[in-house]
């Protein structure tokens, strides 16, 4: 044992080293909440650090009061000379942040605390008399601690004094400040400024400096955070959009610290209990991972290298991040299924799937990177996985190579913003085009993956898309894109913890079912940042994009609109409809892309012939298409999405033809922007035009039903028009209520349903 660790050697001296050598306890007591000292241990450091850090401002006053009292007493007793330096309130505030961020040593609680105390001293010196005044007041440090709605103690304590201190940096022009920092970034000052600004922004109305805008504070904060945590500007901007300020600081702190080491038992060869026992015998300190995992273990520390034990070499476990176990749990592969893992390297998820399937079925493990494939081969052989084929394709080449899988797992390559703690280079080397490039690739991969799933599989039809990134562009946006482009829907992942995905973010709006996706963060769940979405494919057909139309999710929508334009044809109505359509398009833009297709149909309808007789074309894409087909003899509509449309149309034709024609002609003229429900009154063209876009969006069933209903009421155009607009369905008024004006986005999903309904009705 070294001299320093020799317990028998007495430590002498008043200095910090002597105090340190007296033991962690004495130091810790001064800084941690009473009772926390005992629990400080393997599990302790991080959670301990996290807790106070996260609660800096609203820090429970009680904790600090206790601390201070304890520390005061202890301080008095043990370290009388340190009394002047004890600024517990602020030290408690900072030690976690400073120590962790600047020292990056989470193992030793003392050192960070020590340094925090030292920093505090330095700060005091810099700040001058104010601090000492506060300190000497107590024991009256407790006053500072009083948790009044959590304003920072700094701010609150001195009212005027504090504000002055805070304001100083902001009074200086930003440029000047930046120069200062560039020359000699004083991290302590920067850190303190960060805390100050966060505190001010939390209670902006009361604490702002006059004449300074919020954005100035935010810019200052951004720069400070970038300096303090070494982030690039772009990424920090993205993070500021994503998190509220207090969470942002926690997130940044969490990224400085590695996540705990976790491993997964290989149930093909051993049981978790046996493995845990074997590892403990070797000197590894571990625990089960949590309720949610039956095979996971978390390693606190180990006296042997955890990646080189004989158990590891025999393939009894695999080192795997906790968040990487989640997508496989969400996918839930069953035995005797055919699974595709599109980006499998280094093989952790693949092997997990194989062990869940008990080596039955087939897994096709694919990766585009040949180097990393070697690790897949090695891992799978080591773990005794026998039902796997390993291939080296670009994921986008599926399903051409082979398709028809029961389940697919896509762990897409991403920007890695969720695993910054593993790879700090991500902080600076990611920027806008990297993210967009990743997003583009992910979209392509996701579409290929969806096409590789067999929707009619008896036991499957599921796809899990996951990334280790937390940006919205790579997660929700990609998922939303897939929802629009393919016949899939989101289903619950089966993970009951984790934050829900966003349904809206800044200026974007996503499908509401995105709530079933899950996000995981390092600072809240203590695992790598992750995003998981589970899809179910309900139809193997791929929605075609209409000529000039944007791709829509359901073929029915597409079919109908296309039919309409053709059938309508009358030049005049077409033109007018176009005009109307344009206005409608603008209305619709806010709605789903399906509407877009509708709009395009309107454009197409231009060329439609005058035979249009069927009003539907004008008014509602869906409705009209159906009508038109039926009414018009020729299959103008047939050209586009035939099967469904023609079917529908024909059924409707008998009723609607005459009325539709009249209605159509009239309605085509004036575009009406609004309400489809009372088209009759409006000039035909208008209504038609307006109705069309609206109808397009609404579920087919609805549109059809309405139209039909109206038809009997008003034999003429108006009736026809209305009916067409409302419901493409013919004879039977669908259950859909003729409430056009509400076109909720969920209607998009309903379209598939309505399609089914309408088909039933028609047939």
């Amino acid at each position, binding site marked *: 044992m070294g001299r320093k660790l020799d317990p028998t050697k007495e430590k002498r001296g008043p200095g910090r080293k002597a105090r340190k050598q007296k033991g962690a306890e004495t130091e810790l007591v001064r800084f941690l909440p009473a009772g926390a000292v005992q629990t400080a241990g393997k599990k302790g450091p991080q959670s301990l650090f996290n807790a106070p850090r996260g609660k800096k401002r609203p820090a429970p006053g009680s904790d600090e009061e206790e601390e201070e009292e304890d520390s005061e007493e202890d301080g008095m007793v043990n370290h009388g000379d340190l009394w002047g330096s004890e600024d517990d309130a602020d030290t408690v505030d900072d030690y976690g942040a400073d120590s962790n961020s600047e020292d990056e040593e989470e193992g030793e609680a003392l050192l960070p605390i020590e340094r925090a105390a030292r920093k505090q001293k330095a700060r005091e010196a810099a700040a001058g008399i104010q601090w000492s005044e506060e300190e000497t007041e107590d024991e009256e440090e407790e006053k500072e601690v009083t948790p009044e709605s959590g304003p920072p103690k700094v701010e609150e304590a001195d009212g005027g004094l504090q504000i002055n201190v805070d304001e100083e940096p902001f009074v200086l022009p930003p440029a000047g400040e930046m120069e200062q920092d560039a020359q000699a970034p004083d991290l302590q000052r920067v850190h303190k400024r960060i805390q100050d600004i966060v505190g001010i922004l939390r209670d902006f109305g009361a604490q702002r400096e006059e004449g300074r805008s919020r954005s100035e504070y935010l810019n200052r904060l951004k720069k400070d955070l970038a300096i303090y945590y070494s982030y690039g500007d772009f990424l920090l901007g993205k993070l500021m959009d994503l998190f509220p300020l207090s969470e942002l600081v926690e997130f940044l702190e969490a990224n400085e610290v590695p996540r705990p080491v976790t491993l997964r038992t290989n149930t093909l060869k051993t049981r978790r209990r046996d493995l845990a026992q074997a590892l403990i015998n070797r000197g590894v300190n571990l625990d089960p991972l949590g309720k949610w995992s039956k095979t996971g273990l978390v390693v606190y520390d180990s006296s042997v290298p955890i990646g080189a034990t*004989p*158990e590891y*070499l*025999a393939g*009894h476990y695999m080192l795997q991040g906790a968040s990487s176990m989640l997508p496989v749990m969400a996918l839930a592969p069953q035995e005797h299924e*055919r699974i595709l893992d599109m980006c499998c390297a280094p093989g952790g998820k693949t092997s997990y799937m194989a062990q869940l399937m008990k080596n*039955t079925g*087939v897994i*096709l493990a694919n990766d585009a990177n040949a180097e990393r*494939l070697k690790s*897949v*081969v090695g891992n*799978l*052989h080591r773990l*005794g996985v*026998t*039902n*796997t*084929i*390993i*291939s*080296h*394709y670009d994921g986008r080449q599926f399903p051409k*190579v*082979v398709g028809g899988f029961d389940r697919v797992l896509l762990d897409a390559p991403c920007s890695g913003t969720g695993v910054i703690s593993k790879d700090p280079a991500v902080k600076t080397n990611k920027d806008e085009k990297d993210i967009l490039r990743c997003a583009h690739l992910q979209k392509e991969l996701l579409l290929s993956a969806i096409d590789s799933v067999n929707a009619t599989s008896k036991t499957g039809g599921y796809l899990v898309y996951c990334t280790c990134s937390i940006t919205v562009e790579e997660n929700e946006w990609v998922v939303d894109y897939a929802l629009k482009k393919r016949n899939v829907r989101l289903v619950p992942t089966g993970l009951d913890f984790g934050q829900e995905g966003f349904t809206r973010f800044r200026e974007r709006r996503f499908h509401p079912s995105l709530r079933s996706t899950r996000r995981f963060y390092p600072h809240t769940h203590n695992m790598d940042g992750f995003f998981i979405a589970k899809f179910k494919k309900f139809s193997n057909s791929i929605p075609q994009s209409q000529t000039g139309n944007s791709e829509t999710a359901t073929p029915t929508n597409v079919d109908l609109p296309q039919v309409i334009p053709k059938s309508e044809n009358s030049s005049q109505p077409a033109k007018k409809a176009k005009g109307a359509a344009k206005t409608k398009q603008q209305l619709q833009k806010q709605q789903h892309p399906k509407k877009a297709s509708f709009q395009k149909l309107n454009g197409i309808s231009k060329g439609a012939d005058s035979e249009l007789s069927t009003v539907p074309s004008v008014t509602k894409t869906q409705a009209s298409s159906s009508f038109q087909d039926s009414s018009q003899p020729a299959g103008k509509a047939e050209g586009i999405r035939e099967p469904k449309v023609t079917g529908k149309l024909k059924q409707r034709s008998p009723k609607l033809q005459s009325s539709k024609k009249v209605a159509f002609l009239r309605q085509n003229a004036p575009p009406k922007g609004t309400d489809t429900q009372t088209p009759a009154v409006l000039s035909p063209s208008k209504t038609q035009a307006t109705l069309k876009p609206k109808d397009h969006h609404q579920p087919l069933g609805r549109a059809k039903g309405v139209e039909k209903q109206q038809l009997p009421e008003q034999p003429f155009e108006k009736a026809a028009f209305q009916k067409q607009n409302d419901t493409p369905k013919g004879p039977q008024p669908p259950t859909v209520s003729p409430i056009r004006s509400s076109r909720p986005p969920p209607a998009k999903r309903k379209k598939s349903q309505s399609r089914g309904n309408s088909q039933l009705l028609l047939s």
Partner: protein
Amino acid sequence: MRPLTEEETRVMFEKIAKYIGENLQLLVDRPDGTYCFRLHNDRVYYVSEKIMKLAANISGDKLVSLGTCFGKFTKTHKFRLHVTALDYLAPYAKVCGAVSNSATGDEVKD
């Protein structure tokens, strides 16, 4: 990926027979299906038939591995057995200690 030729099968079988004796048939007919040996890039893979059928769709230059690799043929056409074959040979091993893994102590064969 192709089946083994006669010559190759003979060479491989001779090697394996040193450990498990003469019953190569035990490896081929298993309770959970028929397994077979396939050669790909000079490596011999031991794989069940239905997996092999799926792997047939993958072009040769993109296929990396399938099932379990038993060993490979060297440039001079000798067969070198790999440790990855251990799990399959162990149950039938005839030689005492020849396939035991003393380190983990969990695969001692008599």
